[in-house]
Structures are given as C-alpha cells and as structure tokens.
C-alpha cells in the first residue's frame, strides 16, 4: 500500500512507466513473426461447422519428419483431448502440420502455426484426406490453417493467425481479423463453439 501510494504520487514516473509499457507493446506487436498465406476469414461459427473435431487440449508430443523424398518437413502432433466440444470427448488426436524444423533448417508453410510441447490449445480439425485402409493412423489437420488454432494463456484464447493475410469478402468491408477475433476470453470462445454446435444441430 505504501509503495503503491509512493509510485502513484509521481506523475512523471507513472508516465515513464506507461510510455515504456506502450513502447514494449508496440515493439512486440511490430515483431510478430509472419510469412504470408492468403485466405478468407472464417468465424468461430464457420470453423465449428466445418470442423469434424473441435476440442480444448494439450500438446503431448511434437515430432518433425522429413517427407516427400526429403524436400518437405511436416510436424506431427499428438494432442490430448481435455474438453471435447465436437467429434471427440477424450483420448489423443494426431495432427499433421506442414512445416517444421529439420537439422539446422526450418521450413515454414506460411499460415501454419508453430506448436510447442505442453501448450494448451483449442483446435478446429478436419480429417487428413483419404487415409488408405492400410494406414491405421487417423490423422487430422487444421481447418483454415492458423485461423483454426487458438493458444490458451490463462483465461485468454489467442488465435494463431499472425502469419495470414486475410481477404475481405467485400471491397471496403471492415477489417476481417480484428483484435476481438484474434484474442478473446476462453469462456467466450467456448460459448461460441457450443452455440454454433447447437445451431448446427
């Protein structure tokens, strides 16, 4: 209380702190790593409708694999379902994310987020197409790339869409991927998913 009061009594110091915080925020925003992929915006409701599986879970395993005769890298995730909304209630889900790290090189498919071990995420997934009968593994991939992936941080859900260039459906229409679409409370995100599922039924 005493310290708060002492700090609060100094307008210069308060201003300086504010300026520094703003500057850091601007610096961090300016430094968002991104490459481009271009796609139309998808709302939570549209993603939910399109996805076969929607859940909140945790990344249990991240494996990089060199494929396509050595020219491409993919990341294979195992994500445990902690709170299933659609398609899955529990268990592990295998997710393919094009791009990843191999040796000293990184290959990025723009628009595909980078996942890290033990991250809490909300994922909108569609089945990886046409698995052969001989392939027992059931695999999924993200719906609409980074638009279909949220990182959960505390009570916030952050959409992993920094690497996307989003196309507006109509010339002059509002910014399609504004701050409220990039960051929302996890409660709001889950409510919207559940509402969309009810609507879909």
């Amino acid at each position: 209380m005493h310290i708060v009061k002492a700090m609060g009594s100094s307008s210069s110091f308060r201003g300086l702190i504010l300026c520094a915080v703003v500057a850091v925020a601007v610096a961090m925003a300016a430094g968002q790593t991104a490459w481009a992929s271009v796609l139309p915006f998808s709302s939570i409701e549209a993603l939910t409708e399109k996805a076969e599986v929607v859940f909140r879970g945790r990344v249990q395993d991240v494996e990089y694999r060199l494929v396509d005769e050595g020219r491409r890298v993919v990341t294979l995730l195992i994500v445990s379902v902690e709170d299933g909304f659609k398609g899955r209630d529990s268990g592990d889900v295998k997710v393919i994310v094009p791009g990843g790290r191999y040796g000293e090189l990184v290959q990025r498919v723009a628009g595909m987020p980078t996942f890290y071990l033990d991250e809490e995420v909300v994922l909108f997934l569609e089945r990886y197409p046409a698995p052969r009968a001989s392939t027992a593994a059931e695999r999924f991939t993200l719906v609409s790339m980074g638009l279909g992936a949220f990182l959960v941080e505390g009570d916030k859900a952050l959409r992993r869409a920094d690497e996307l260039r989003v196309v507006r459906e109509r010339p002059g229409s509002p910014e399609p991927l504004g701050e409220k679409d990039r960051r929302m409370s996890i409660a709001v995100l889950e409510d919207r998913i559940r509402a969309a599922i009810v609507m879909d039924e």
Partner: protein
Amino acid sequence: MSRFALTSLMLVLCLGVVPRDADAYVRSLVPGGSACLYWDTREITWYLNDEGSSRIDDGTDIDAVIASFETWNEPECSDLTFEFGGLTERSDIGYIEPPPSADPEEDDNVNLVVFRRDLCTDVVPSTDPCWDCYEPDFDGPCCSTVYDCWSHSPTAIAITTTTFFTATGKLVDADIELNEARYLFTTGDGPVCEQGPALATCSSDADCGADESCMMERCRTRGCVHTDISNTVTHEVGHVIGLDHSPIPEATMYASAGVGETSKRSLHDNDIQGLCDIYPAGGPTLTCGGEEDEVPPTGCCGGGSGAMLLGLLPALMLTINAGRRERRGRI
C-alpha cells in the same frame, strides 16, 4: 532524477521508440528466435511452372507474375534483383539440402511459383500410396508432387513455403503456390467483382450446375477483377525477401486485402524502405539477432521484437532506477 529530467526522458523514449509511419516496415523472424530472415545474395533466381494459370490463356498470367517480381527490382536504393529463370516443368515445392561438398552449380533447388489447378482430394485416388507420405516407413513422394495438386487447406488462396537456417535466418529457398482450384485469378483492370473470393460464388447466376469449367468461363467473361495475380504475388514476394506484415493499410505488405484489390501491385514507400534498409545498394545486408551478428540493428523496426526489445532494455533499466531513486527519496 528531477521531474524535468524524467519528463524529458519520457518524451525522448516515446518519440524514439514508437515507430513512425515511414519506418514501420516489419521484418520476419525465425520462429521462437530473434534472427531476421534475409538472403545473403543480391540476385535471386526464380522460376514459373510452365503451365502458368490454366484458366488464363492469353499470357497475361505469366506477365503478371513476372511483373510482380520486377516491381521489387525497381527501387534504385536497393540492388537486390529477382532474375526470372524461365518457365519450368517442375512443380515440386520444398528444399533438399545439398551435401556440404556439393558444387553450388549443381544445387537442384529452385525458387518456384506454381498455380495448382486441382485439389489433391479431387484428383488423387484414395488408394494411392502417396497419401501415406507422412508415415515413418514411407519414403516416396507426396501426392502434391506426384499429381501437381493443391494439398493445403482448400480455403487458402496462396501459400508461401520458405526454408531458412534456424540460427542465422539465412533464407535458402522460397516457393509460392496459388490455389486455382477454388479461386479465380484475374489480371485485368475491370470493376471489382461483386461476389466473394470463392469460385463457387460465380455460379449464382449461371446455369452451370457443378460444371467447374462452365463456372470459370462465366466468371472470366464478366471482366471483373477477382483475385488479382499481381496484387497477390507482389505481396508474397515481399515475404520472400524477409518482410513481415506492415501496420500501414496502404502498404503492399499490409496483412489483409480486399476482393478485387489491385492497388498493391506497386510498392508503398514503407515497402521500399524495408527493401532498401535490408538490401541497400552497394551496402551490406542488414541482418539481426542471429548467432553471426555481434550488434543488433539500429533504427526503428529493423529487427522486429528481439532487436527492439534489446534497444529498449537500457531505457527500461533507467526507468526502473529512476523510480527506485524517487521512491527512496520519498520514503
């Protein structure tokens, strides 16, 4: 520290740190790191798949792609040059790391632009073994390579795949794919199409049923601008050279685009400044944050968050110390 001094410092910090519009280009960084992406050559050769756009048969598709790269060659303040290597039959995306002893002349990797006419899910039989290419015991090509098809999200319009060194950010390969299976690319200057970007919307007033070629023709003959090739590829090329999205809506590197947009076929001052700061004519390439760099880049936004935060550290230290001193004085 006196109140006057603190206020002065505050002003200096604010004016010096917050990006001015002209400076606000942003560089791409290695994921999870602070190294900026860059090419260590000033001549980047690229190729175009010889099919070009299968929907455009008057050559304007090829011209539009070439023009997109040429646009980045124009500013005289930079000597970075994109060299068109020509049309190629190749359609494979990615990068095969050559052995260390390999002759650079024999490097088989190419920077490629390719239009994908079909979705893999539409043309590849479900029994084809290429679907198993992500399995650990499979060492053949993936379906997109075998069938020259779009294997990404069907909703994506264009995708850039880049390969670079983790430690330094040095780029070694960049490929651009355009999804012609679901989107109508145009090259003209007509009015903006009223529909959304998805091809399916073109069937709304056409009696085409599911006939895709019919839909395409109806769309094309409307003479409106849908997804402009130059507007799209010029932006992608900005990423190829290591630029990230700009906060300036008028910049080519801005993060969103409108249907029918053509204004970003050319570069904004902000894009040019990024190009010329990183690859100045006659000067060294501006790198940052990598293991090979001893000094972070100077200038606003030159190195993204990592470098900027480094630059901010002394100011933050001063701020904290000033606060401590002030508190000590008051207690």
